[in-house]
Each structure stands twice: as C-alpha cells, then as structure tokens.
C-alpha cells in the first residue's frame, strides 16, 4: 500500500492536478505541443501560397501547400477533440475521487461532529459543490498551457513576420489585462449584492404569505405592496448594474481585440504600399492576429473557473476539517482478539464546555459477567456505555477491554470484539438478510482473510431470528411474497397440500379474518382487476399493469358497460388521493394504503387537475388509460378514501362471468382461472394457502393467522424455506417498512449473529413488548452468561434480577454497585428506586 496521504480536508486543490492524474496530464501536454504546431503551420502555408504559389503561378506548389494546410487543420481539430476528451476524463475522475474520499472522511468523523451538522449540507457538498473544483482540475493543465503556448507561438510568428507591427498589435493586450479584472471586481460586487437582496426578497414574500390572514384582516394590501415593491426596485437596480458590468467586460474585450486589425491595416497597409512588407505577410499577419482572440477568451474563462473552483473547494474542505478520533484499521497488524474482560478506572467524560457527564467511574467485569446500568434519566448511563463502546472518547481515566486501552484501539479492533445495540438503532435499505449480516460483514471485510469466521450459515441466521423473536415477522414477510413460476415450481405442490390442510383445520375458525376466493361473490379485499379476471394471465399483454392499454380488454369493458363508470371511479380516486397525500414525502407509512405509488404522484396531481377542468371524453387517450388503470387497482377493503357504488359491484360481478366466457372462446390459453387445486402465481404464498385474502390489518389477528399456518408448514417441512424467502424482504429506506419493534429486534439480531465477546445494549429492548423483552433477557441469562460480557443500560427495573452486577448511577457518578440481592438487602438507592416504582 502507498504511504498514508494527508486527509482530503488538509490537501490543497493543486494536489489533485497531478497525483493520480499525472499520466493523463502528461499525455495532454504532448498532445498540446503537437496541436500548437498544427495551429501555426497553416499561417505559414497561407503566406507561402500567396507569396510563392500564386505569385509564381505554380499549381504544384499550390496543391502541396494547400494539402499541408488541410492536413494541419484536420490534425489541429482532431487533437483538440482528444484534449477535450482527456480533460473531461480528468475532471470526472477527480470529481469521483474527491467524492469518495470526502465521503469516507466525513463518515469517519466523531459522533459529536454530527450534532452540529445538517445532513443536507453534507449532501450538497458531496453532490453539487465539488463539481466546480473538479472542473478546474480538469482544465488546470490543458487550458492554460495550450492557450498560452498558442498565444506565444502566434506572437513569435508575428514578430518573425514584422517586429514593429507585432509590437503594435500586441500592445492592446496589456490594456485588457488591466481592465478586465477591474470590471470583474465590479461584477463580483454586484453579484454578491444580488444574492443578498434576493434573499431579503424571498424572506419578505414568505413573511407576507404566512401572515396573509393579517393582511386580509386589515386590508393592508398597499402596505405590503410597498414593502415588497421597494425591495423589488432595489433588486432591479442591482441587476442592471450587474448586467451592465458583465456586458461591458465582453464589449470592451471585443472592442480592444478588434482594434487589432485596424492598427494592422493602418500601419501594415502603409508598409506594404511602401514595399517594405509583402502582401502575403500582411494577410498572414491579419489571420494570426485574429486567431489570438480564441485562446485569449479561453484564458479569461479559465481565470474565472480557477476563482470559482478554488473558493468552493476551500470553503467545502474547511467545513469538514475535523479529525477522526480513532484509526479505522490497524495498519501493521491484524485486528486484536480480546477477551471480554472490562476494567474501568476513574473514568471521566467532560464536554468541551466543561460539563462533567461522567466522573470518577470505576468497575471491573470478568469475561462473561453481566452488568445492568440503572439510574435516573440523565445520570450518564448511556454515556458510560458509549464511552466503553468507543462511540465517545472519555477525557480522563482508563477503560480497558482485554487489558488494552479502548482509546488506543482502532475501530476494526472494536468491531471484532464488541457488539453495540443503541437506543434508536438504524436499519438500512436492503433486505432483512442484508441488515442481519451488516455487523458481520463490517467486521469481516477488508480482505484480511482473518475475518472469515464472520460468515454465518443459514442455521445461524435462523437461530438469531428465533433468539430475538423476529422469526415470526420474517415468516410473515415470506408468506407475503410471491413465487416465481419458473424458479419455485417444486414448492408449489406442497403449498397446495398446505392449502387443503388449512381448509380442513382452520377454515371455520379463521373465516372471520379471511375472504375466500369465491367465483360468485365480489372480493372486497382484491382489486377491481382481480375481481374481473378472477385468474392469472399467462400472456404479457394481459398482465394487470398492461390491462388498461390492452385494446381487447378495453373493448370488453365497453361491452360490459364498465368503461365509463370505472374511469369515473379512477378520476374520483385520483382526486381524493392527491387531495390527502399530495404534499407528503414518499414514505411507506403514507402510501401503504394508497392506490397511487409515490413516484406516480406528480403525474396523478396533473391528472386530478385535468379531471376538474375537462369532461372524461375530453381527456387525452393516455390520460384516460391512466385513470382506468388506477380504477383497476382499487380495492375497497384497502383504499378507504372513496366509497364503492353498489351498482358497480354488480356490474363487475357480471363482467367477471362475461369475461371468462369471452376470453375462453377467443384466447383459450391466456388465463388460468382461480381453481382450488392449482397454485396461483399472481398471489402471495399466504393468499394461496388461504385461497383467499386476509381482511384485517391488525397485527394481533395476523399473528393468530400465522400461528395457525406455522404448524402446517412444519408438517410439510417448509418453514425454513418460507423464512428464507422472508429474509429477502426489502425493508425500505431507513427500514420504514418495519415497525419500531421489528427494527429493534433486527438490530439486536445483527449483533447476536456476530457473537462478540463484549455486548453493550443501550436500552436495546425499550420498544419491545413484554414477551419479546423477556425472550431476549432469557437468552442473555441462559446462553450468554459466562460466554460474553454484557453491559446493559436498563430502564425497566423488573428485568435486572439475574444480572451478576447492578450499577446505580446518579449525576455522572457510580453511587452503588453489587449483586441485586446484596443491594436490595442494603436498602440503599436501588432499593429506593424499586420501591418508588411500586
């Protein structure tokens, strides 16, 4: 590995220019040298064409020079393209590298840093702010070198043609160099004012709008108009000034540069008339002079890009200029394997402003001992747990894990030896399994080979699901999954057998919870489409998502008198849903009962407006299809925002038998109609077992249902298979498809799976019901005692009896410590706390 580089926030923008880009930049330099030559060559040819070929009337020479001219123009264009491509490559590579390094740096910063940092700022820094610096890095070699070289080459060439004339025409540039920065400063000044005033203006608008009832109440329109008007006028003046200076840079630059030819005509024409300058040289001079303009312009643009890039880079890096408190990975040794011996001596944690959150804490835990930390809220229990777990750095004293100072350990050492479950654990987007493996993967990665024991088997995973009580939840996710006709055909027969046994054993008891598929009844917990088809399509164009655009199906709806009523239903559904959910963020909790998915919301907002403005037949064809499609998803048992007309219910029931008859004649193979002896691939496993759908969303009822199914699955030896499918359930962003309790159980499970020597649980079971909490406590007592050291911050005092030690904290100090019985007999603070609870 290369020697450690300084952290990204300590590096200047210039270090990015070469570094890993050196090779590319060198190629660029070579290409530039050739390009400059290829740019100057045509000028010389131009001169020779006039002076030699035309004057001597030599066609061969003419063709030769023109040929060279053409080749060099082609070469110059081609090379310029290559250079641009390389430049873009360098800038994009740099951008990606800056992003990765800055991201890695930011997430390694201590927790305290994030208390004062808005996530939005991190997002904008990583997403948009770095683009300007990277753009500059891409240009940094190519643009100044090629343009300066071109300028110099042309200038030298001009001097070579005629020194006086050259000096005269170049004399313009110093004026521009002096003038442009001067004007630019004015532009910057005006720009700054513009930003400020725009901000004031938007504040003003916000204030007026949020106080609009007061404005109406007082009829204070004129006052508000005046306030707004004066700022708008100020903005107008500033914008004028800004635009004026911007325009004047452009104009004066253009003006001075186009003065060039004028000077050349005057002096050059005079010299030519006098015979002291050849006509060819004059033409070449004019061309060269004109060509000075482009590189000049690019240099000025480069100057601006440099300013923008540099300022943004410094600002961004300065913001994140903090240091991680611990090394992430030990550079020169494998991570340590420590036993669970914890020795805390005189530990203190004092905040930056001198508040003593922990003071003089000492205790010792032998490997495998369990300690409960109790005390009033704010007494420092969590802080102590976090200091031992290296989440916060203690400021004084010692915390030894396996006789090594925790402060000196790297993050990797901690990950190998400690599992931490926080009060508000975070679950990441991905499957249940991804989250279950999160801690193991984190401890085992980096390819050092030594982490291989963090590769749990399926049995291990299922075991921790049991231990933490999330097994049934996972099973339920599995039951709610759909099987793939190609992949899972082996399962299908068994599931149909489960269905038959289910009917026999539970058909009657669960009839209240389940709406069985019945050809002669409307299914209120199924969609309109399911009610109409009452089967699964075998053809792509008859899949539910495509139905609303299928001409055959639309013609059928027309025939069944369903098209307009359904479109009307769709319109009503769109209006209602948009009305309620229109301004909410795309979170699962808001959209789980909505027929419209979050990413369709904007489209349906527009549609809802359209239906208020126009009659249904006036809508565009694709808009009508959208409404029809929405209506086909409607399931009255789930979508409670509109009522379901009884007439429509009857029409759909009639449509169901009409459709079956018609489609069996026209496309006999297109559908598999629901049949108790067949597996239905368009329905979930659970619906297949029921041959129906659940009516209830209550978790209690669902638990009853699942409990009845478990036995049947065990009989068919399907339990683990279905749990395996359940582990593939996508938990959604931040795990928002899970309940708070499920998230907490999953967070405990992922740490249990790692089986660390030290387990720290910071009120880890606070969101769990009594049974789940007891189950986990039981596991700690029976299975982990003597194997893993446990420090548990405990809020509920009824679960601490079986801990080896109980530590009572108050105001940052440990005031009592000992066995439960001992402390109770002592009738001290713990005794008082428990009595107080009773």
């Amino acid at each position, binding site marked *: 590995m290369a020697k450690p580089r300084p952290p990204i926030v300590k590096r200047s923008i210039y270090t990015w220019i070469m570094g890993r880009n050196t090779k590319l930049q060198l190629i660029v330099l070579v290409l530039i040298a050739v390009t400059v030559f290829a740019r100057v060559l045509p000028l010389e040819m131009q001169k020779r064409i006039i002076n030699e070929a035309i004057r001597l009337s030599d066609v061969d020479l003419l063709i030769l020079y023109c040929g060279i001219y053409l080749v060099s123009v082609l070469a110059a264009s081609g090379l310029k393209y290559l250079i641009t491509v390389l430049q873009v490559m360098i800038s994009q590579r740099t951008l990606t590298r800056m992003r990765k390094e800055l991201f890695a740096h930011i997430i390694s910063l201590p927790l305290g840093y994030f208390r004062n940092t808005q996530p939005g700022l991190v997002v904008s820094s990583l997403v948009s702010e770095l683009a300007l610096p990277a753009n500059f890095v891409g240009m940094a070699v190519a643009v100044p070198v090629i343009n300066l070289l071109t300028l110099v080459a042309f200038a030298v060439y001009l001097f070579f043609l005629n020194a006086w004339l050259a000096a005269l025409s170049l004399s313009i540039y110093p004026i521009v160099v002096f003038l442009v920065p001067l004007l630019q400063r004015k532009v910057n000044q005006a720009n700054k004012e513009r930003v400020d005033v725009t901000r004031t203006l938007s504040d003003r608008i916000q204030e007026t709008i949020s106080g609009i009832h007061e404005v109406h109440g007082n009829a204070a329109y004129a006052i508000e108009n005046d306030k707004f008007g004066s700022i708008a006028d100020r903005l107008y003046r500033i914008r004028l000034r800004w635009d004026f200076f911007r325009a004047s840079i452009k104009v004066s630059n253009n003006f001075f540069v186009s003065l060039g030819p004028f000077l050349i005509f005057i002096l050059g024409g005079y010299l030519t008339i006098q015979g002291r300058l050849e006509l060819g040289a004059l033409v070449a001079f004019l061309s060269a002079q004109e060509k000075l303009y482009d590189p000049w312009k690019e240099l000025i643009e480069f100057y601006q890009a440099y300013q923008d890039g540099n300022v943004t880079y410094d600002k961004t890096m300065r913001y994140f200029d903090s240091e991680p408190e611990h090394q992430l990975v030990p550079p020169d040794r494998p991570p340590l394997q420590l036993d669970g011996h914890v020795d805390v001596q005189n530990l203190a944690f004092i905040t930056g402003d001198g508040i003593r959150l922990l003071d003089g804490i000492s205790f010792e835990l032998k490997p495998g001992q369990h300690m409960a930390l109790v005390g009033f809220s704010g007494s420092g229990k969590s802080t102590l747990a976090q200091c031992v777990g290296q989440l916060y750095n203690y400021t004084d004293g010692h915390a030894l894990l396996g006789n090594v100072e925790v402060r000196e350990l790297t993050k990797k050492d901690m990950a190998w030896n400690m599992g931490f479950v926080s009060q508000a654990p975070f679950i990441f987007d991905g499957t249940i399994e991804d989250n279950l493996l999160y801690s193991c993967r984190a401890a085992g990665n980096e390819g050092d080979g030594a982490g291989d024991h963090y590769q749990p088997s399926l049995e291990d995973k299922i075991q921790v699901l049991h231990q933490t009580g999330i097994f049934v939840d996972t099973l339920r996710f599995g039951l709610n999954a759909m099987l793939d006709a190609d992949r899972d055909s082996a399962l299908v027969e068994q599931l149909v057998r489960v269905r038959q046994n289910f009917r026999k054993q539970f058909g009657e008891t669960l009839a209240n919870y389940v709406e069985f598929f019945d050809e002669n009844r409307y299914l209120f917990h199924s969609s309109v489409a399911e009610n109409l088809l009452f089967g699964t399509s075998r053809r792509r164009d008859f899949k539910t998502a495509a139905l609303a655009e299928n001409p055959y199906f639309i013609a059928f709806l027309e025939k069944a008198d369903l098209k307009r009523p359904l479109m009307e239903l769709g319109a009503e559904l769109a209006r209602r849903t948009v009305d309620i*959910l229109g301004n909410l963020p795309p979170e699962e*909790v*808001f959209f789980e*009962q909505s027929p419209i998915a979050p990413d369709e919301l904007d489209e349906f907002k527009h549609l809802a407006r359209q239906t208020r403005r126009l009659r249904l037949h006036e809508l565009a064809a694709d808009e009508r299809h959208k409404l029809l499609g929405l209506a086909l998803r409607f399931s*009255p048992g789930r979508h409670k925002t509109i009522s379901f*007309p009884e007439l429509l219910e009857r029409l759909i029931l009639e449509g169901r038998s009409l459709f079956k008859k018609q489609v069996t004649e026209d496309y006999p193979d297109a559908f598999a109609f629901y049949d108790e002896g067949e597996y239905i691939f368009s329905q979930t496993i659970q619906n297949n077992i029921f041959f129906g759908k659940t009516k209830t969303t209550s978790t209690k009822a669902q638990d009853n249902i699942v409990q009845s199914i478990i036995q049947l699955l065990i009989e068919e030896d399907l339990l683990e298979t279905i749990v395996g499918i359940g582990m593939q359930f996508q938990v959604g962003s931040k795990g928002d498809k899970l309940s708070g309790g499920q998230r907490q159980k999953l967070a405990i499970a992922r740490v249990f799976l790692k089986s660390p020597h030290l387990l720290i649980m910071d009120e880890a079971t606070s969101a769990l019901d*009594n049974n789940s909490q007891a189950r986990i406590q039981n596991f700690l007592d029976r299975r982990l005692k003597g194997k893993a050291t446990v420090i548990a911050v405990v809020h509920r005092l009824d679960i601490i009896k079986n801990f080896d030690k109980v530590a009572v904290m108050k105001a940052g100090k440990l005031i009592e410590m000992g066995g439960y019985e001992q402390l109770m007999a002592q009738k001290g603070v713990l005794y008082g706390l428990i009595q107080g609870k009773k």
Partner: protein
Amino acid sequence: MDSFKEKNSAGSTCEFQQNLEILRQIEFFAGLPIETLKIFAYLCARETFASGEHLYSADDDDGQAFYIINGQLELAYDIEGREQTIRSYAPGEFLGGLSLLAPLRRLFALKATQDTECLVLSREKFAKAIEQFPELVPRIFKSVADSIRDWDQQRLFAISEKGLSLEGSVGISAI
C-alpha cells in the same frame, strides 16, 4: 360479512369521511387544521375486538389511541391476581392520546366487555404525520396540558363539593 356493502346501502359516505367527522369532534385533535386531520383520518384503522379481548395489558407499550365507535371498553388494574375495574368507556369516547406523544408503559389493562369496534391510531403513524407539521406540535402540547388541568379541576370541584379532604387526591396539574 361484507361491511362495505352495508355502508354503501346506508349512504355514500366512505370510511375516510366518517373517520374525519369523528376526529373533528375529539378534544385531543381540537385546533388542528382540517388538512392535518385528513391525514390522520386516512391513517386511522378500524379494528374490532371480541368481548373479553385485551386491547393492551399493564406494562405494555402498545402506542395506540382508541376511539370507540360501538361496544364498551373497561380499564382494569390487577391487584394480586384480583382484577379491579377502574372505569368503563362508552361509544364516542377517546382514550390513549398521551401514548401517541411518547413511549409510555400502560399502568392499567384495557379490555373489551362487549364486541367493540374502534378507530385506532398508532404512535408510529401519528409521529410520521406530525413530523410533516412541526408547527402544530405546540398545539398538541397545549391540548394535553389543558386536559390535565381540566381533569384536575373537575376532581377538585367534585371532591370539595362532597366536603372530603383534598390532600393527596388532587394537584396532578402541578407536575
């Protein structure tokens, strides 16, 4: 049992609108704008509980609030195995608002003494929705503080009317 059919023949108001009407009359939600109530009405679920079924038990943190549509609920406390009734709730009553605001372990148990239908709102949904309207949080706090004060005042009047000693019985609003 197709409850949708019954509702449809009874009238054309959908469950959402009925929920909205109910929420508008609940003190706890008083003062919240209709736009917010719409979201709560949308997030509410109707659940039925069989007679004798527990809605929650002591020490649970179920995080739910209930509005009784029909049926009857009873709050009970277990003293050494003997269940003592604290009070009962009739249709139209709302309970559990406090546990919407923060994790809260139940002191009592709540069970249905008849087959009961409730409108149920969970803390998780309530919290997600109120996150969208942070400016409303002070109003919710006020409504809770008001109801504690009102309750204390009612007890104060009731007890002093009976001429009993006030000591230890009132003063909860002084917390």
